[in-house]
């Protein structure tokens, strides 16, 4: 079955003014690599903590009050709901401010926004996850989601790479998946060091070597734009059709809900119609501006 | 003027045909009455559209910093000064521009015409300059005015009507219609009120600013790759159009273009909410001239204002 329309899916919507963030508290901070941190957060409000739901692949708008607001995907799985997580690299005003915060600090959250991965359409499929660097964050949410319902899916391949061993994010997850017999985990780095005994090679090359079968499979790709650009042709070579490839896109965003204008690709807004798109959609985008 | 126009077209065509320039930058008739619009082209057939008339307000030097290659450019006196200033700042190489100089007798300020006649520009039938007079026809009625009533304020104070820096001069040097007191009137008026009143005046004016940045983007002297207002770390001022931030933006912009501003008046002309910006830029121009005897774009070989100093100057502001 082809994955076609994956926009406009059901959303959780808190009551009231959609622009008003809810207060969440940072419960834990994990130093993933130098410059990348994962934040575990939870709503301050008990009712919201209970009611809040989201889907893998959706994102939120996070506020550091007085500094600003920025969108990041939720990196934890909805199947594990005592808290939720996001992981960010220090690149701009808001991410720098977030990196200055400690456990117990209050930030704002609104969301979840966007479509998320079409979980129902992935059932019964072989899944091939291809991730690079911090691009594992949205995949990670989906991977745990899938593993927590393992019997609904067929074979699972995870191919993850980073520039160097010290740039590998979510090491604790990588270890867990590596040990999991129901997962074929392949980790690679662009360039190794003395301590590195694992695989060396760029993600698209490694993917080609691993060569997961395209039959009844869906590939889910997320990473830096350059990696995505080189991964799709490999998948095509392996026999994947454009409808069998998913990715999530990143754009400058402000509102997160399709109003402020800036994240459009042609007539589609990444915040409102994405961020998850099939390669078929990307191919048919009016604009090459993605 | 028709002769000059024909000469311009011939020269421009030759430059493009012979590959001496990659682009030609000039004026063509605009899509609205009494306007011109910049013509930027590589196509020699387009040069037939080039015009010279009393409505060519834009300072074309603004396009030099973004175009790549050798450029043939039509320049009035003030534009030529901006070009020279860009050469001073190493933003443009002299050998990469071919300046087609136009002796400029002053440009007609349509908003002054509108005020005089009490009608909008599209309701007028004709505006013709005849020497020191301008003849305006509206509703079938002809009226004559001294030309200094309709020229831009900065034209009335023009210090260089005929380009000094040029490759080809398209006409005889122009004798400007100078009316310095009219040119300075709004500034003098401001100097006549108390400092508190002045500040309140600017506060009021800048409360209308919508932060479209037309003043900055139209300015040949504003060539920073990234403007300080766009810095986020630190964030010097807020992007919201609040008078405090608007005013601070304009003050800093003026300081940044001090010694580069040639008083071309474009910032004030393009402001959609009529903030009298030239009352700031011209005063800064005069301060620079008074303190440091420096006038932007008068000598392409002179060191830029802020890279240079004299041993003895401006000591009275220091303890």
């Amino acid at each position, binding site marked *: 079955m082809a994955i076609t329309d994956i926009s406009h899916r059901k959303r959780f919507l808190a009551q009231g003014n959609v622009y008003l963030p809810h207060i969440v508290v940072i419960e834990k901070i994990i130093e993933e690599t130098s410059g990348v941190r994962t934040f575990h957060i939870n709503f301050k409000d008990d009712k919201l903590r209970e009611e809040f739901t989201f889907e893998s692949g959706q994102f939120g708008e996070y506020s550091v*009050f007085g500094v600003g607001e920025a969108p990041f995907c939720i990196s934890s799985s909805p199947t594990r709901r005592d808290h939720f997580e996001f992981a960010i690299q220090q690149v701009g005003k808001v991410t720098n401010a977030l990196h200055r915060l400690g456990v117990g600090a209050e930030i704002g959250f609104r969301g979840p926004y966007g479509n998320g991965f079409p979980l129902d359409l992935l059932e019964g499929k072989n899944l091939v996850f291809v991730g690079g660097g911090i691009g594992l964050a949205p995949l990670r949410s989906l991977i745990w989601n899938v593993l927590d319902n393992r019997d609904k899916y067929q074979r699972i391949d995870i191919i993850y790479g980073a520039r160097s061993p010290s740039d590998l994010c979510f090491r604790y997850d990588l270890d867990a998946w590596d040990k999991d017999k129901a997962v074929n985990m392949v980790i690679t780095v662009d360039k190794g060091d003395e301590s590195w005994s694992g695989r060396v090679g760029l993600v698209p090359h490694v993917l080609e070597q691993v060569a997961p079968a395209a039959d009844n499979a869906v590939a889910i790709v997320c990473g830096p734009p350059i990696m995505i650009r080189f991964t799709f042709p490999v998948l095509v070579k392996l026999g994947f059709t454009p409808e069998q490839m998913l990715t999530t896109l990143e754009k400058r965003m*402000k509102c997160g809900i399709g109003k402020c*204008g800036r994240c459009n690709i042609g007539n589609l807004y990444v915040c409102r119609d994405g961020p998850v798109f099939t390669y078929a959609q990307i191919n048919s985008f009016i604009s090459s501006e993605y | 003027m028709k002769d000059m126009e024909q000469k311009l077209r011939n020269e421009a065509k030759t430059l493009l045909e012979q590959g001496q320039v990659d682009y030609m930058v000039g004026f063509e008739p605009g899509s609205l009455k009494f306007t011109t619009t910049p013509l930027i082209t590589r196509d020699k057939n387009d040069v037939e559209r080039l015009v010279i008339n009393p409505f060519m307000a834009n300072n074309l030097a603004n396009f030099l910093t973004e175009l790549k290659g050798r450029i043939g450019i039509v320049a009035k006196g003030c534009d030529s000064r901006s070009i020279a200033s860009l050469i001073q700042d190493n933003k443009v190489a002299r050998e990469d521009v071919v300046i087609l100089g136009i002796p400029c007798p002053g440009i007609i300020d349509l908003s002054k015409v509108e005020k005089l006649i009490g009608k909008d520009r599209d309701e007028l039938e004709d505006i013709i300059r005849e020497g020191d007079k301008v003849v305006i026809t509206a509703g079938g009625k002809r009226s004559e005015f001294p030309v200094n009533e309709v020229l831009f304020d900065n034209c009335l104070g023009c210090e260089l009507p005929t380009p000094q820096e040029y490759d080809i001069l398209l006409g005889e040097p122009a004798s400007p219609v100078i009316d310095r007191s009219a040119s300075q009137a709004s500034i003098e008026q401001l100097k006549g009120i108390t400092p508190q009143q002045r500040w309140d005046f600017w506060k009021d004016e800048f409360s209308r600013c919508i932060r479209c940045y037309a003043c900055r983007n139209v300015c040949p002297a504003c060539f920073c790759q990234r403007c300080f207002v766009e810095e986020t770390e630190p964030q010097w001022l807020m992007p919201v159009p609040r008078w405090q931030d608007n005013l601070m933006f304009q003050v800093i912009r003026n300081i940044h273009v001090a010694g580069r501003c040639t008083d071309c008046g474009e910032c004030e002309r393009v402001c959609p909410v009529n903030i009298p910006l030239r009352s700031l830029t011209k005063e800064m121009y005069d301060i620079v001239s008074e303190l440091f005897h420096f006038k932007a774009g008068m000598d392409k070989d002179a060191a830029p204002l802020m890279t240079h100093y004299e041993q003895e100057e401006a000591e009275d502001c220091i303890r």
Partner: protein
Amino acid sequence: MDSKKVNKKDIGKLLSQWSKEFTVFVPSKENGVAMMAGWDGTDTSFLDWYRNTVIPPKEHFLPPMEEMFRFQKDKGSYQLEQPASDGQKQLIFAIRPCDANALAILDMTFKDAYEDPYYLSRRKNKLLVGLGCINPYDSCFCTSLGSSPSDVANVDLMLTDIGDEFLIEGITDAGKELIARTSGLEETTEADDARAKEVKEASYHKVTRRIDTGDIGSKLLSCFEDEDYWGKVAAKCISCGICTLLCPTCYCFDISDELVKQQGTRFRCWDSCAFPIYTKMPMENPREEKWRRVRQKVCHKYEFYPMNFGVIACTGCGRCIRLCPVNWDISQTLNSLPAKT
């Protein structure tokens, strides 16, 4: 016809009457800049000069800047406080049909998927009294967009200049009710109605600028990747925000925070796709080049908006042409699209 009339001399009285119920906004000039501003209770001189405003009436629905909420910092905790909504009913007098139509276009975005509470609450508490144009600008092109200088589609009441008087028509129920409870209006005669018809007819033909909107979406689609064309079109653009910020149908905004001592505010303010920084991300910018930004502006209005909402997001008010520092003219661009290859 459900119409009344009022003598132009009595407009002050009419506005005074309405002022009891509404905060009334009328065309005003601030240092020569026309905008819709609160009526001072006496001045009706706008009747002599008013053609259209420079600042579009959208400023009263989507202000150039507004506070989204305030926050109080108390030690490490934050208390959020929403701005009080303005309960006072408002009336915008003499809005032009193009600007009223623009609000209907903005409604689509602000109602879509998630409702925008700020815009929609302002929309709800305002009544629009339209005034048909009898003297459109040479930059106007509303008739190319299925509208006209006397279009009543999105106003509550419509005024038509029939000489010494305005003919008043109730369009919506709210408009008709307002007419019914307004005193001092005169009954119209058949001659008045005939005169109004003539005026509307005549003003329609005064709009001379035309664009060809037939098949415009697919024309734009076919030249979308034509960098050469867009490069030429964009060459003289200086990337300022005039045409977008002052466009009645442009709605893009930016969001930013300010914290002074322990008190903070989240603002939103107008933003523009003409600015390179608008789409700039830390590592890349999909619209770094000017031609991409100009293309975005044109295509958003004439291609993407119709795809998403079924209407062209332009009402032909002509402000972008009239106010452009370099006379960049969207009608020329749309009329010179390269033919399909």
